[in-house]
């Protein structure tokens, strides 16, 4: 069954049409990659899926696990298991990572009718995940992403993903700005989440991440539409030939 089904999706930003009829089906257990040149609509697509409110959907539909995703607000989507890994994670001084993560976990638990988790139990659960992304426990007491390097911010996104255990992961340029070690940690995190119940949408400009996370399908987004789809070999072809041959098509 499809976990995410996008049909003929059109979306505007400030009156300008960015997505011009996107169709995409992702089944549980699959990893898809969306690639495309800058300005092709990749970040708009991930923002629309996560529920950003500066986009207007003018036509089409998005269904997640059979439910109408468009009618849900951002927090409902998150609690239903949709996760967006941000291209530019936000710094929030004054709110500690630990507090934020636990508040997020408790929002999810409440949604599922579970009692709140206390600080000690929460820390026991997080500790092993910290090791997985090599984040020092001390960083949990710092403000959310406050003073984090680019790589630390992206690893923190992966940490949140591991802790929240979403069903649909949308990772928006999570590979950008990472050195090779951080890229491997991020890829390990994504691979650790692969399961028959979950699906992943990798939004990326480069093929680099796909050396470590092998996608089932690769799509090329250009000028607001998916212009080509294929297997993992398409990513390598794009790396070799660029996007020009598809954009011209």
């Amino acid at each position, binding site marked *: 069954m499809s976990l995410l089904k996008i049909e003929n999706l059109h979306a505007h930003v400030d009156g300008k049409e960015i997505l011009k009829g996107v169709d995409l089906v992702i089944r549980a257990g699959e990893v898809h990659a969306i690639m495309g040149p800058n300005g092709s609509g990749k970040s708009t697509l991930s923002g629309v899926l*996560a*529920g*950003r*409110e500066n986009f207007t959907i003018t036509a089409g539909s998005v269904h997640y696990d059979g439910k109408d995703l468009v009618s849900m*607000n*951002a*927090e409902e*989507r*998150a*609690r239903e298991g949709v*996760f*967006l890994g*941000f291209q530019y*994670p*936000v710094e*929030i*001084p*004054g*709110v500690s990572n630990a507090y*934020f993560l636990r*508040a*997020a976990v408790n*929002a*999810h638990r409440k*949604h599922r009718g579970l009692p709140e988790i206390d600080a000690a139990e929460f820390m026991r659960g997080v500790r092993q995940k910290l090791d997985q992304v090599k984040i020092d426990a001390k960083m949990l007491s710092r*403000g*959310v992403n406050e003073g984090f390097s680019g790589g630390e911010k992206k690893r923190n996104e992966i940490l*949140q993903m591991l802790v*929240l255990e979403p069903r649909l992961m949308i990772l928006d340029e999570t590979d950008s700005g990472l050195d090779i070690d951080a890229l491997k940690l991020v890829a390990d995190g994504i691979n650790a989440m692969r399961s028959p119940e979950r699906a992943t949408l990798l939004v990326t400009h480069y093929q680099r991440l796909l050396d470590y996370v092998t996608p089932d399908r690769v799509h090329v987004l250009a000028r607001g539409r998916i212009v080509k789809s294929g297997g993992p070999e398409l990513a390598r072809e794009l790396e070799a030939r660029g996007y020009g041959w598809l954009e011209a098509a």
Partner: protein
Amino acid sequence: MLNNITTAIEKLPALPAGRRAALDALRSHGLPTTSEEDWKYTDLSKLDTLAIEDVAPSIENHDFPAAYDCGLDALNTALAGGRQTRTIEGRVELDTGKHQRLRLQVNRDAQLILDDRTASRFATFFAAIDIAPNARLRLLRIQNAAADAQRLTRLKVALRRDARLEAITVDLGGAFLRHDLDITFDEPGAEAQLHGLYLARGATHVDNHTRIDHRAAHCLSRETYRGIAVDKARAVFNGKIVVHPGAQKTDSEQRVGNLILSKGAEVNAKPELEIYADDVKCAHGATFGQLDEDAVFYLRSRGLDADAARRLLISAFAHEILDRIDDEAIRDRVTREFEAQLK
């Protein structure tokens, strides 16, 4: 308004001569009006409904100052029935919900907690504080008075050689509030750290005026205020720093940040810097803004609802100040009261 106040005080039984003199001084000075720069946004004529129960009865054993530098100075003394002088040491708590006129001496190490405890409608609290050489004062003023409370406070702190002041002020409640905090460095080597938070909601008017006079060389001042205005409230902040001739090697920094969360809310914040010495380090800045909507979305994208996300961000903004309260019981109480005001 003046007649109203003076009549109320004159009706008190057994009025001492000093109190009469304070009333005369009040009449001759008059109260500041909005035509004066320092009172541009705070209109004292709003106090004109003053009643007899807003006035303290006469108290024995108080002395009276020989002269008054302004009408408010005289008003406070007249209302408080004179001035008390005392030395403070260790932890001392005073009530800003009652009219008081104080002269306080700090010779060693003192922690002064000014809490608004009496459910009075109107109170004026004026204190002159002298911090002796090498002495240290931790000053905490907390105001979470009832929604109709009117308060005028003025704290004048003079620091001697190598003295130290750590002041934190928090305003959460009240209807009409004006606070003056004046710091003077009279001798070298002293240091003052000021932190303030004001939350104005409903129709509250809260005005914080601070003034730091660097009269001596080698003194350091740091000042951080944060303000939040919602509903139809108005917050005023004026931070004046004067570096006098000869106050070389002054090191001064002032930051004020404001969140304006409703269309009808207003903040008037102004840093004022006057420098008459050439070898000094001074920095200041004021910001005004709304909540960072990217941060709100980030929190929501992890499952926090929009209201909780906004409250969390407002709290984080305020905690920069609240977290500096080192008395744990008071910090917890003030934090709870702050969170309750946000609901």
